[in-house]
């Protein structure tokens, strides 16, 4: 495990459930409590300073919910969060001043920038809100510095978001995130809306900024090749739970959990052209009624009777952790 003192963010037992909204007549007639979506269940993870932790999984597995809980957009149902050695959940609503050091980059650079604000104002907002710099000319100098840092020109501050391409807009949202001088960036699918040639530019920019400013990243992505390129550590999620986590190289090159193996098999890769093994059956089940025991057992080729009854607990395998009965058995024997 990582040195505790070096962790910038530490999450323990994070759980987030949503009540499903139904028309009130249906709710009254059903005479049952509201169904709950188990978006995130009992997730614990630690992210080391200056490193990248990637969460991977298919849509609906809860990876964006974790990002939103950490960013304070959602309030977790249960769990604790330690950021820069302080409990940031303790204050009501999680509105802790330390959250300034924790910023977020969103997937869609078209929806995440105010179309009626000039770029300069968009980037200045966090600076003004947190009173980081005062004086108009000094704020303008800072905006110019931030724009240069992300590869845009200082003159771009006078333009509106619609005058930029998707990749340039993502650079603007990175500049906005950097404006509050953060230590930690949550990047939720930062390149999924971009073309591949632009994706490479943004990924390279993110790596350069990490080296230059000592940033730590939580990267959410469904693209395993992007994760392999960026991440130091990887967590694989299935139906709201972490099923496997460890060093990126271990997880991606020697996957243990059957679900991780399935994901890696399913990724079409430009580098290898092959007849794939029989693709896995089925789809991700609903997180309103997740399967009993191990949530993956209905799709798992290694499933036994026990998997439907008992939920597997994470066990250490090498330097990583895996929650799977079959893996546990093979480790013990």
């Amino acid at each position, binding site marked *: 495990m990582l040195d505790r003192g070096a962790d910038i963010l530490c999450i323990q037992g994070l759980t987030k459930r949503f009540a499903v909204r139904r028309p009130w007549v249906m709710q009254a007639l059903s005479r049952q409590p509201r169904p709950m979506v188990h978006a995130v269940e009992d997730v614990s993870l630690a992210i080391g300073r200056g490193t990248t932790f990637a969460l991977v999984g298919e849509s609906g597995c809860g990876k964006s919910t974790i990002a939103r809980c950490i960013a304070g957009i959602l309030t977790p149902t249960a769990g604790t969060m330690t950021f820069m050695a302080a409990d940031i959940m303790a204050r009501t609503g999680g509105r802790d001043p330390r959250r300034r050091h924790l910023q977020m980059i969103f997937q869609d650079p078209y929806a995440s920038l105010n179309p009626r604000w000039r770029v300069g104002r968009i980037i200045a907002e966090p600076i003004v809100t947190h009173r980081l710099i005062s004086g108009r000319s000094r704020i303008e100098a800072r905006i110019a510095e931030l724009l240069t840092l992300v590869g845009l020109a200082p003159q771009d501050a006078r333009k509106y978001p619609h005058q930029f391409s998707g990749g340039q807009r993502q650079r603007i949202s990175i500049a906005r995130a950097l404006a509050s001088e953060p230590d930690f960036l949550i990047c939720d699918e930062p390149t999924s809306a971009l073309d*591949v040639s632009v994706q490479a530019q943004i990924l390279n920019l993110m*790596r350069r900024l990490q080296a230059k400013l000592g940033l730590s990243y939580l990267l959410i992505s469904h693209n395993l090749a992007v994760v392999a390129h960026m991440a130091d550590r990887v967590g694989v999620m299935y139906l709201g739970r972490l099923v496997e986590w460890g060093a990126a190289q271990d997880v991606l090159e020697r996957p243990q959990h059957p679900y991780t193996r399935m994901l890696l098999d399913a990724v079409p890769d430009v580098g290898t*052209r092959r007849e794939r093994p029989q693709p896995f059956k089925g789809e991700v089940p609903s997180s309103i009624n997740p399967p009993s025991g191990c949530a993956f057992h209905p799709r798992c080729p290694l499933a036994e009777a026990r998997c439907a009854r008992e939920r597997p607990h994470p066990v250490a395998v090498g330097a990583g952790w895996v929650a799977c009965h079959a893996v546990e058995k093979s480790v013990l024997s």
Partner: protein
Amino acid sequence: MADPVLSVRNLRIEIATRRGTLLAVDDASFEIAEGEVLGVVGESGAGKSITGGAIIGLLEPPLRHVGGEIRLAGRRIDDLAAEPMRLLRGRHIGAVFQDPLTSLNPLMTVGRQLMQTMSAHLDLSPREARTRAARLLAEVGLPAAQERLDSYPHELSGGMRQRVVLALAFCCEPQLIIADEPTTALDVSVQAQVIEVLRRMCRERGTAVMLITHDMGVIAEIADRIAVMYGGRIVEIGRAEAILHAPAHPYTRGLMACIPSMHRRYRDLPQIEGSMPRLDAIPSGCAFHPRCPSRLPRCDRERPVLAPAGATQSACWLTAACDQMQDIVAAAGHA
């Protein structure tokens, strides 16, 4: 030799705007043989979906087909009137689009949609149509196909819906399928299943497929040949292995290099500077020249045409020069 299933010659499509007309597809030519999968790749704005739309006759103003010809099994189809084109669509050309929820009718059961399409084009009794619909659903891998006939699209998951769309596309045994980003809205595990179904159905039937996607991984899985589009033009076309592993055009090379792969490790990804030009600002000469790392003096003045370059056809002055050079060297060797 038999006619290719699809032959597109010098296709030009314009977009009429208030500030004048723009060329969305500029002089595109390609063919697809029976049972062949042609992957059309490019970044957004390259004109790949518009090319697909022109073939199925679904261009709407402001898009306008202004030149070139499209032939299906030797018969010209780009000048057909609306009604004959409608009869052709569905019968001889099937289509699969990105979002299965919008390509299915939400108020009609899956079975009725299939039966309606078949009875519009084929002479089948309702009973035959129903049997055939159930068989098709089983073939695309829908569990409990017989019962699923009476399901509505909202009762199915995303992957199941896309399977139904595939069944719809194949239900009249078309000669050609246009698949426009068929797996983009799906998760990777489901994407793999849908690609598998598409590949199996085409192989069994000998259907020609034009697969439009921005995902090189998907293309690598299924395409026999690949056409790379940039700024409305085809810049390189050739066998899939050649394009993937030995591309000639600098754009294709840059594109292939900048895709992160599970099997390569870089400090920095190789990157192409800049982004795809907007249609109102297509550069002169070769559209790629402002971003090209190996441009020549003539690249901003003269437009290159597709010419043999190694194992592919490439529209590039550099690869044309290299190819000529090789010819000269070979000739000198013989002499």
